[in-house]
């Protein structure tokens, strides 16, 4: 029995992509056929034909076919353009089955070209795509995986069964309209409803990004004056300009000035000699004076020891000026006598001698300015849960099926990705709160959204229809069905599969489709402006104000999010002194080793040498700073995401119609 209407099939070359009258021929005798396409796949055609008894894949044979039919008033309508997949498996039979697929030769190229146009934030974010899988189209050879661009889109690839054009089609709303089927257009018994996998009610997402936090700057630690005994060590150990320190620090300016030049100062020896050259003398006349003494520079503490003396009249020269403040003292006081008069033994020449030890006092003026060159590692972890607003189809959903977790491990946002470092300024301590970071967050939400929407099509409805209606099916369309057996009486959904079939055996010719119905509650989510919390409204330009409770809606209008500012962690650049200062103080608690300031041997002939030691306080500057390199700072960044509004394409909660 022939098919009910005239069908044509023409073997053609792959380049004959435009249907024309020349293809309205019958190259093979068709017994029956089945054309079908399911979501995510290319359309296929199975032709049962009388065995042509030739090698269908012989070199030089045409393996592409135009399949069309005579619609009557509508003329010849092409139905399929595809290539033969393989030789028939039942090649000995009188009727063999040929399989065709409507997949263009440049399918991969088209996908790469399309993927290139789909690499748009926030639906595609290379940060969260394995570098080896990031798709790059090139006529010389594309690389990567074009499929990854669909992660953030609620869409699937679609291949047109006639043109071979590769596009994407949304999984909820078809781009090419809705086919409406009334009850009279559908065989009553052909309608079936299947509840598929329970829907995904929530998705928990974590997304990590990292970057090397780098920054340079200067911190002034001020000027100081040290009035001390150990100024030499302060001068020598004070950080020098240009010195490299640990922890990312270096010395921008480091000076320690010895104000009194004590470092280079030395004692000065002086001498005085007098000789009486008068011709006549009387007892008591001074005949000669011989004196040597030491002058010490600047201030300090002078110690006297080793006093030797003979009795005599204390000459005025015996009173020495030695104190730093210019005061005078009697060097003999406190040594062997109370400073009173020596015994007047006129016949004994006056002789005095002693040693002096000067412990120098210092005044050191310092200045210290440090440079930092930060090199830390930053990590930021965004965390949110996206929950869907769905109708229930089970009373006790399996948690493993209703909940999904998607961990994302992001790239280093401080290095170039497609020519630009996403964080732009690597000194930043936060990423997701930047404009670019918010797009990354929107990408993660988009991925979670697409996961939920895919599973939200929990109800599948199938039916059959006449052939003329069926030829209108494509996977870029929605279809609706009115039937009082369906909750709510009507359902709409995306066509997820369709078929067209005809058989000469029984003279049947019809088609059918299956739609996937989302089981949401409809609705949209609007962005919330929030409340100004930093300064009074309108005091600053937009973008500077801190808005509490502000939400941002995705372009889809079905979900919004709020990104609270997290508690700061780690170092925030530009640095302030308070951030890095651990301790800064002047320490005078330590004493020097004992310093020998006097040796008295002559005065204590009976007991031998007596040495006098004195310890002096050490003045030390203590500065402890946090290192600005080698740190690992991690910041949790929770995000508050609204409920995802899902379309209501079937009302499972309808009470009655």
């Amino acid at each position, binding site marked *: 029995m022939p098919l009910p209407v005239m069908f044509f099939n023409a073997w053609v070359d792959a380049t004959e992509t435009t249907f024309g009258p020349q293809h309205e021929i019958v190259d093979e005798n068709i017994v029956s056929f089945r054309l079908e396409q399911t979501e995510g796949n290319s359309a296929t055609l199975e032709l049962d034909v009388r065995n042509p008894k030739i090698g269908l894949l012989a070199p030089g044979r045409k393996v592409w076919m135009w399949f069309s039919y005579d619609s009557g008033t509508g003329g010849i309508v092409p139905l399929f353009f595809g290539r033969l997949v393989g030789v028939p498996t039942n090649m000995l039979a009188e009727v063999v089955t040929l399989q065709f697929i409507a997949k263009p030769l440049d399918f991969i190229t088209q996908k790469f070209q399309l993927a290139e146009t789909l690499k748009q934030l926030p639906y595609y974010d290379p940060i969260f795509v394995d570098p080896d899988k990031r798709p790059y189209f090139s006529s010389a050879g594309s690389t990567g995986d074009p499929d990854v661009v669909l992660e953030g889109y609620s869409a699937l690839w679609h291949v047109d069964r006639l043109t071979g054009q590769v596009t994407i089609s949304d999984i909820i709303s078809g781009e090419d309209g809705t086919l409406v089927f009334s009850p009279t257009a559908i065989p009553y018994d052909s309608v079936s409803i299947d509840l598929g996998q329970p829907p995904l009610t929530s998705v928990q997402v974590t997304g990590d990004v990292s970057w090397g936090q780098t920054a340079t700057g200067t911190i002034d630690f001020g000027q100081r004056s040290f009035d001390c005994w150990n100024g*030499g060590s302060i001068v020598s150990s004070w950080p020098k300009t240009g010195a490299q320190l640990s922890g990312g620090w270096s010395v921008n300016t480091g000076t320690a000035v010895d104000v009194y030049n004590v470092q280079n100062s030395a004692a000065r020896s002086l001498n005085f000699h007098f000789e009486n050259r008068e011709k006549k003398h009387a007892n008591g006349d001074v005949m000669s004076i011989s004196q040597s003494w030491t002058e010490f520079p600047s201030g300090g503490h002078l110690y006297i020891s080793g006093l030797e003396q003979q009795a005599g009249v204390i000459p005025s020269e015996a009173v020495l000026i030695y104190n730093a403040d210019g005061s005078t003292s009697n060097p003999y006081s406190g040594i062997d006598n109370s400073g009173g008069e020596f015994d007047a033994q006129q016949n004994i020449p006056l002789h005095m001698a002693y040693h002096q030890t000067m412990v120098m006092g210092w005044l050191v003026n310092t200045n210290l300015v440090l440079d930092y060159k930060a090199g830390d590692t930053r990590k930021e972890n965004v965390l949110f849960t996206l929950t869907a607003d769905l109708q229930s189809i089970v009373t006790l959903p399996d948690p493993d099926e209703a909940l999904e977790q998607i961990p994302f491990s992001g790239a280093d946002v401080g290095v170039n990705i497609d020519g630009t470092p996403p964080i732009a300024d690597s000194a930043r301590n936060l990423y997701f709160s930047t404009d670019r970071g918010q797009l990354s967050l929107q990408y993660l939400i988009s991925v979670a959204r697409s996961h939920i929407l895919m599973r939200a099509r929990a109800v599948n409805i199938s039916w059959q229809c006449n052939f003329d209606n069926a030829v209108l099916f494509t996977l870029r369309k929605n279809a609706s069905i009115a039937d009082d057996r369906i909750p709510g009486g009507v359902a709409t959904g995306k066509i997820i599969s369709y078929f067209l079939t005809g058989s000469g055996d029984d003279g049947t010719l019809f088609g059918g489709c299956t739609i996937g119905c989302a089981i949401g509650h409809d609705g949209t989510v609007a962005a919330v402006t929030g409340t100004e919390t930093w300064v009074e409204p309108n005091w600053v330009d937009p973008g500077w104000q801190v808005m509490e409770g502000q939400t941002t809606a995705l372009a889809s209008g079905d979900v919004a999010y709020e990104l609270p500012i997290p508690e700061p962690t780690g170092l925030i650049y530009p640095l302030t002194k308070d951030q890095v200062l651990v301790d800064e103080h002047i320490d005078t608690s330590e004493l020097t080793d004992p310093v020998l300031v006097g040796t008295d041997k002559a005065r204590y002939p009976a007991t031998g040498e007596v040495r006098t030691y004195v310890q002096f306080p050490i003045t030390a500057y203590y500065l402890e700073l946090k290192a600005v390199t080698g740190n690992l700072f991690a910041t949790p960044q929770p995000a508050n995401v609204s409920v995802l509004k899902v379309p209501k394409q079937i009302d499972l909660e309808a009470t009655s119609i």
Partner: protein
Amino acid sequence: MSTLEGIVRPFQTSDIQPPKTPASGNVTDTANAPPNLVLNPGKGGNVKTLSGAFNLTITYYHVNKPKEKPKPTA
């Protein structure tokens, strides 16, 4: 045919299984912090001392007069 020409989204074919535990912040604050920079100029220092001496010698003119012998008494 789907095995021949499946063009599905990556996540649909992945083997990732739903987790058994809910998500949580899995990062902590600073870890393995490097040592701080410590500057301590003056620490352990000592003093600078200078040495000197004083010498003074004065001589006087003095003529010793011999003591007179006591005169004999009658």
